[in-house]
Each structure stands twice: as C-alpha cells, then as structure tokens.
C-alpha cells in the first residue's frame, strides 16, 4: 500500500525512460533503410569524372555495374571488374546474361548498365565495353559521374 501514498508536493520529474525507445526506433529505421551493398573493389578505386548534366539512377536493383580502372599492383592498362572479380572484355556478355537471369521478363528492358570508370581510363576500353553491350542488346547505359563542373576533368 505504501506505493500509493506518494508525496504530492513538488513537480513530478518527466520520465526519460521512453527516450531510449524513441532513439532505438530511429536507430532501427536507419539500420533497416540504409543499404550496405558494397562490392569490394579488386581494382584501384576509380576516380569518377565530374559532370553537371546528370540524371539520378533509380531502382538500384535494376542496375548492374562495370568498374574500369587501374589494377592495384600497378600493371599498365585498364582493368575491368564485373561483380567481384577482374574480368576481360569477353566476359561482359555472360555477365549481362547472368544479370538478366535474375530478373523477370518485363524488367529486362529496364536493366541499365552503369559504367564506373576512372577519369584517366582510355576511351578505347569504354568503346570495347559498349560494343559488347550492344551485341547483347543491353542498350541502356549510364556513365557514372560525380556532380561538379565538367571542366575539372580536363585538368588531370
């Protein structure tokens, strides 16, 4: 009974016991919504060029990525990474087919290939990739860039 005989004097303290609940809710929200899909790069991280006429890539599940850059051990020439391994140009076709197999029929025409290439890569490599993509009819591509002035690209 002693519990009910509380003093009625003074201001009751605001209970902070529910504060952790609120914060945890926020925490879970952030943990669930952020997608940590990181493919670890086998090549040196490409330094993306800058551009301002950019579009956002939507529906990330429909995007497949091709990385182009220098290899980590410094061997000359551009290296291509598809998914998790360094590949050659010839593997691109099977890569596209593998990506298509994961999607339904009506999604296939929406599939986009995003090319993340280094500023100093050669256009020749990019052209080879584009020719391979054209051969398998994967026509939607996106040159991944950062937002910024395109004039900065020339300074390298």
């Amino acid at each position, binding site marked *: 009974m002693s519990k009910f005989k509380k003093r009625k004097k003074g201001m009751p303290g605001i209970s902070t016991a529910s504060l952790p609940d609120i914060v945890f809710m926020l925490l879970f929200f952030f943990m669930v919504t952020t997608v940590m899909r990181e493919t670890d790069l086998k090549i040196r991280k490409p330094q993306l060029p800058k551009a301002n006429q950019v579009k956002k890539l939507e529906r990330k599940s429909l995007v497949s990525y091709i990385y182009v850059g220098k290899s980590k051990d410094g061997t000359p020439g551009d290296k291509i990474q598809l998914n998790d391994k360094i590949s050659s140009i010839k593997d691109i076709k099977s890569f596209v087919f593998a990506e298509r197999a994961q999607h339904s029929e009506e999604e296939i025409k929406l599939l986009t290939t995003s090319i993340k290439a*280094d500023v100093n890569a050669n256009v020749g490599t990019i052209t080879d990739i584009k020719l391979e993509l054209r051969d398998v009819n994967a026509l939607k591509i996106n040159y991944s860039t950062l937002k910024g002035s395109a004039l900065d690209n020339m300074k390298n």
Partner: protein
Amino acid sequence: MARRETPEINAGSMADIAFLLLIFFLVTTTMDVDTGISRKLPEKQDPNIKPPILKEKNVFEVNVNRRNEILVEGEIYMKIEDLREAAKEFIDNGGGKDENGEECTWCEGKKDPASSDHPKKAIISLQSDRGTSYGTYIAVQNELVGAYTDLRNRLSEKLYGISYTQLLKDKKNNPKNQAIKDKIDNIKKKYPQIISEAEPTK
C-alpha cells in the same frame, strides 16, 4: 519508507548509449545516390543497309584526339569552355526547313544558310580516339548535352514560363499528370537530342 523500495535502475544513460549507436550509423552509412549521364546505345546495324546521306552543313563534327584536344568541324581547335556555345549556335541556327518543309519558328539563331537547317536535322557527330582520356570524353558529352538542355530550358521558359529542368522534376513528383507530359514531349520534339558517336580512331 523510501529506503525499503527497490531502487529503480537509472534508465537515463540508456538514451546516451542509443544516441551513440545512432550517431555511429548516421556517420558511417553513406547514402550515395548514383548519378551519371544516361545514354542509349544505337542498335546493331545491318551491314547491308547504307547510312542515309546527310548534308555536311547539318553535321557538327567534334573530334577529340589522343592529346585531349578538341577539333570542331575539322578546322577549329576549341577549348572545352567554348564548345557549348558553338553547339548551341549550330543547333539553333534554323537556316532552312525540316523534312516537312516547315521553318523553325522558335529558333533564335543567325539563320546562316551555311549552317544547320533545322534543329530536327542538326546532328552532332562525336568522334574520339582510343587514347582519349575518359574524363575529357565525359566533359565533351556533358557540354553537348548541356547545349541541348540550355536550348530546351529557353524554349520552355518562353512557352510555359517554367524551365525544362523544372518540368522534368514536376513529372517525377506526379508521373500521371498528362499536361506536364505533353509539354515535355512538345519541347523534346522541337529540340530533339541527336548526338551520334562514330567509331574511335585507332
């Protein structure tokens, strides 16, 4: 009396722990949105079909060599800063008629008979070398797309009092609005983006 109660566990520091975790997640997760220049590759051509014959004045030729120098129309070396203006001047020239015999009433160009006839006929041809750096290539593409965006913005501003970029944003927010869609289609039709890429030189 108060001594006999079980002391409550102080939950005040719980919030601190949770906040710490929250801030950790906020800081470590990078919500990088992928942006880039979207392009559509041409479909594979039948080798037997001959390409259509174009008038030379309707083609704006841009060459980028392996030293990242830009050559326009086969004779002028141009800086990247000037490329956009040159492209705009070419597209917007409107010196002649389109295939239906209509003049370009929305063009504000010089109407030079030696330059392009009509925005619908004006073709930008981009040729690069295999050794060109990707950064330069993107910069050139960006400027060429930028030229079209500038022209479209100007026309949209004139017709509807709202920029083309804003129209595209509005479309994203309410994708079912037919009026916005019609406006976009109209402007796209008036300034179609025709950028053709030639095979790179070896």
